[in-house]
């Protein structure tokens, strides 16, 4: 596991230390530790059942961990009930109060804090303006579209200036286009308000778009925490490499400095300082293959798909190796059955 | 009220026809209608049904090979609906005293056949042509023997009303019948001069006892239960219910004086499917030995006065027919006329704040 550079130790707003949680025999969280800096947006990325939702619940206070502690701004909140944590949260299905108007929904956290009427009106107005819902005050949630409901949920979560904002897969129910708009809007708002934010998703693309840093989780443990580029370019292990983006992953042994011996006898030139004899994983992103690359692969096209800007090709190489390759979409789509040769430079190969 | 409704008479015509032809009677006695596989007798159910099976139904089934199907409960409304619709399920049904009179007036009942049912040993009051008096029951005083020892219990309605001399919680029936009469007797009206009832006088007297009545009972098993649970120390109740507790050794005894006698009755609904066999069943109900069996079970003797000769000496003191002269008969005729009014006044009186 690597720790990324984004979070300087001193400025950690949220600190999670050795948090563990079991449900019967199932280990949901296996001593997870991480920190989030003031104003940072950290995404927890993982498949369902990876423990990311449990981790979020522990932070929000809906689950009590078996071990470990959670600190916000230096204060230990591990045993604090949700109502006392001062954390804004947007739920998967927004969890808007169906019987309350948009205004009453957004005013709710302020009322709970006994804010005065006039102040409530002012802040609700501001929050709704921020999410571009001014004029919708009197509507009921069911009279709004999915995207609008999402904005109400967001306004409700930020209106009381929480110390922390938690987003639990908030875009899952939206169609693609709306999702992209909302992602950018959330990102913009989060930056503008400087909100320390944890964002939960299973969608790696979404994670790459939104995050300052990503924590990839699997089986209750964090596999890697790093900046988006680092996660993509230099994944720490098979799981991260496979889960984030399209990938070709091979395994081999360092036979000499800068040389990986694959099981079929082929040797790959790589840019790695791993000691000879070490067992290593090799990651080749499909889009990093280019004509004239140093390490050459020749294979027959098994499947060719046109994707607008690129062709996605599946190659069956000599020696039984299968490769996923993307090429700029120029000229006609290569026919299946054609044999082609592609190459990849040592710098484009990540060894782990 | 229109009572002249057409009725299905085809079944009856068989019996009627046989009776008309059989002027001398006996010669045609064998010409009885074919035996059905079963007849239906409707009664109140419960322990009464068990006793009737033991005393009458088993013998009937053995004698004639006709199964006796028992149904319950007794329901005047249902009887009326059955006869009106011409779909009569019951061959014979138990019927309350006033209901029997009203049913006769509404022409809902068939006649009891004197050639089949022998009522020569019955008192003249129990010879109604449409109604068979099957048994006698009485509303009397039940008391706790551990509270009133050695004959210190109230022995008349005047004493029942005397709460100073006979203190303790009482229970009476939530119904005008019995209570109006008891009140008048307590107020000095001789027990044979109770009818027609003077409502004002009766209710005025009842006002006096009202605060001392803890529970107004509405089902037959309540009085004995209230006594057993010590909810009350005195309760009016039906003799058979007290008899049942006494038989089992419960701390209860009966004061028979000034009890209100009523007769349990059976009648054949007009349009019944097997009227002849229903009459045969009534004949079985009139046999004194069988009545004695029934009386020993429940404490409700039949009106064949000979039946007292066949009961055990230990049982006899618990049968109301042994004390006929100390008691009085409730007038079904009066209630048939005035029952609704009495009920309404009673309800109003019950609602009145004590």
């Amino acid at each position, binding site marked *: 596991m690597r720790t990324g550079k984004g979070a300087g130790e001193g400025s950690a707003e949220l600190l999670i230390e050795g948090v563990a949680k079991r449900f019967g025999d199932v280990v949901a969280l296996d001593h997870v530790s991480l920190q989030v800096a003031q104003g940072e947006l950290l995404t927890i990325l993982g498949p369902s059942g990876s423990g990311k939702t449990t981790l979020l619940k522990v932070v*929000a*206070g*809906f689950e009590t961990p078996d071990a470990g502690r959670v600190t916000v701004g230096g204060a230990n909140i591990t045993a604090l*009930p*949700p*109502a*006392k*944590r*001062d*954390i*804004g*949260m947007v*739920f*998967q*299905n927004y*969890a*808007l*109060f*169906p*019987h309350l108007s948009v205004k009453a929904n957004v005013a*709710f*956290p302020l009322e*709970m*804090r006994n804010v005065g009427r006039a102040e409530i009106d002012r802040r609700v107005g501001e929050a709704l303006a921020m999410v571009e819902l001014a004029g919708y005050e009197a509507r*009921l949630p069911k009279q709004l579209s999915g995207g609008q409901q999402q904005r109400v949920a967001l306004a*409700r*979560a930020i209106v*009381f200036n929480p110390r922390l904002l938690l987003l639990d897969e908030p875009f899952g129910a939206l169609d693609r286009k709306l999702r992209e708009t909302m992602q950018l809007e959330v990102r913009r708002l989060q930056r503008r308000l400087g909100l320390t934010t944890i964002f939960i998703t299973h969608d790696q693309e979404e994670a790459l778009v939104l995050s300052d840093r990503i924590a990839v989780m699997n089986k209750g443990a964090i596999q890697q925490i790093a900046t988006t580029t680092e996660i993509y370019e230099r994944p720490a292990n098979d799981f991260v490499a496979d889960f984030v983006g399209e990938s070709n992953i091979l395994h081999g042994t360092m036979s000499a400095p800068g040389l990986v011996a694959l099981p079929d006898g082929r040797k790959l030139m790589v840019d790695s300082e791993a000691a000879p004899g070490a067992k290593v994983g090799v990651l080749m992103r499909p889009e990093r293959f280019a004509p004239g690359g140093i390490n050459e692969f020749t294979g027959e096209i098994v499947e060719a798909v046109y994707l607008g800007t690129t062709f996605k090709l599946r190659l069956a190489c000599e020696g039984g190796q299968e490769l996923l390759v993307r090429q700029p979409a120029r000229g006609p789509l290569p026919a299946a059955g054609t044999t082609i040769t592609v190459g990849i430079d040592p710098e484009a190969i990540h060894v782990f | 009220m229109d009572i002249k409704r057409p009725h299905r008479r085809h079944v009856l015509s068989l019996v009627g026809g046989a009776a008309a032809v059989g002027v001398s009677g006996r010669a045609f006695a064998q010409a009885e209608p074919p035996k059905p596989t079963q007849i239906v007798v409707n009664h109140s159910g419960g322990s009464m049904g068990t006793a009737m099976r033991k005393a009458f139904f088993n013998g009937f089934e053995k004698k004639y090979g006709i199964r006796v199907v028992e149904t319950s409960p007794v*329901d*005047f*409304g249902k009887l*009326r609906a059955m006869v009106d619709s011409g779909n009569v399920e019951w061959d014979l049904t138990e019927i309350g005293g006033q209901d029997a009179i*009203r049913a006769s007036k509404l022409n809902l009942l068939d006649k009891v056949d004197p050639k089949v049912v022998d009522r020569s040993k019955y008192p003249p009051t129990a010879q109604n042509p449409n109604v068979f008096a099957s048994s006698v029951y009485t509303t009397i005083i039940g008391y706790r023997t551990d509270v009133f020892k050695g004959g210190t219990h109230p022995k008349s309605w005047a004493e029942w009303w005397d709460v100073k001399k006979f203190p303790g*919680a009482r229970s009476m029936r*939530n119904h005008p019948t019995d209570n109006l009469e008891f009140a008048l007797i307590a107020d000095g009206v001789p027990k044979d001069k109770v009818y027609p009832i003077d409502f004002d006088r009766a209710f005025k007297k009842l006002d006096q006892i009202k605060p001392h009545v*803890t*529970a*107004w*009972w*509405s*089902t037959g098993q*309540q009085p004995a*239960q209230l006594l057993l*649970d*010590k*909810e009350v120390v005195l309760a009016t109740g039906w003799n058979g219910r007290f008899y049942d507790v006494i038989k089992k050794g419960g701390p209860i005894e009966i004061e028979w004086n000034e009890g209100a006698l009523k007769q349990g009755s059976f009648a054949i609904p007009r349009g019944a499917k097997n009227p002849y066999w229903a009459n045969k069943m009534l004949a079985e109900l009139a046999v004194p030995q069988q009545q004695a069996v029934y009386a020993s079970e429940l404490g409700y003797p039949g009106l064949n006065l000979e039946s007292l000769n066949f009961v055990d000496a230990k049982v006899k003191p618990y049968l109301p027919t042994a004390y006929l002269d100390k008691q009085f008969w409730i007038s079904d005729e009066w209630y048939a006329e005035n*029952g*609704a009014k009495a*009920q*309404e006044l009673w*309800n*109003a009186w*019950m*609602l009145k704040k004590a």
Partner: protein
Amino acid sequence: MTTRAAWPALPALILLLVFFLFPVVRMLGFSVEAGTLDWYAKALGEGLYLRVFWNTFEIALLVTLFCLLLGYPLGFLMATTTPGWATFGFICVLLPLWTSVLVRTYAWMVLLGRNGVLNRTLMESGLTTDPLPLLHNFTGVLIGMVHVLLPYMVLPIYGAVRRVDPAIPAAAAGLGASSARIFWRIYLPLTLNGIFAGSVLVFVLSLGFFITPALLGGGRVMMIAVLIEQQVRETLNWPFAAALSAVLLVFTFAVYAVAQRFTQSEATR
């Protein structure tokens, strides 16, 4: 709804027509058999019957209120506790429905009597010196009826609480609401339909009670069903019974309509 979509409901409609609407129409017919409204004049004009109607509504209202006070927490707990406890709760709540009215009523007589279990325990523990009058009065009727009717309140409320998405109260907690405020601001408004359904059921069923009041009320608590039953079974005055029933029916519908208007306006606030 289109005509075609209504077809599958036809058997149910016919059933309702034959077994519900027809008898009601017959009953209404009975009440005006004589061609006059005399029986209605009697039902509504005489103090006795108005008093009993009023009694009946008063009792039904109180029973509904107590059922609600007991049933809401119970239904709420059952809906939010573990499945094991919920099952246990169900058994306890439904048990009275599986026993006969008489058995239930006698059980209460044993418990509530002057020398009943409750009074003896109270007196032996020195909490009271004289037996409390729990039986043969209004209190007894109330206790007995609330017991019998509680399931009809608990089940709709249980259902309503179950229908609340658990994320909603969680969201409220996260936004700073205390348990009490979550209840008043979130659960209560979101379960109003369950409260309404339960209350209407209990109220309407209460109106028809007569065995429990007769036995536990010691004759002192008179409800309209008792009078109707008297008219049907004893006095045989079916037209009057029908008129009383019709008045009861109209009152019931009126209460239902008012209650529905009230809850609907609450729910869409």
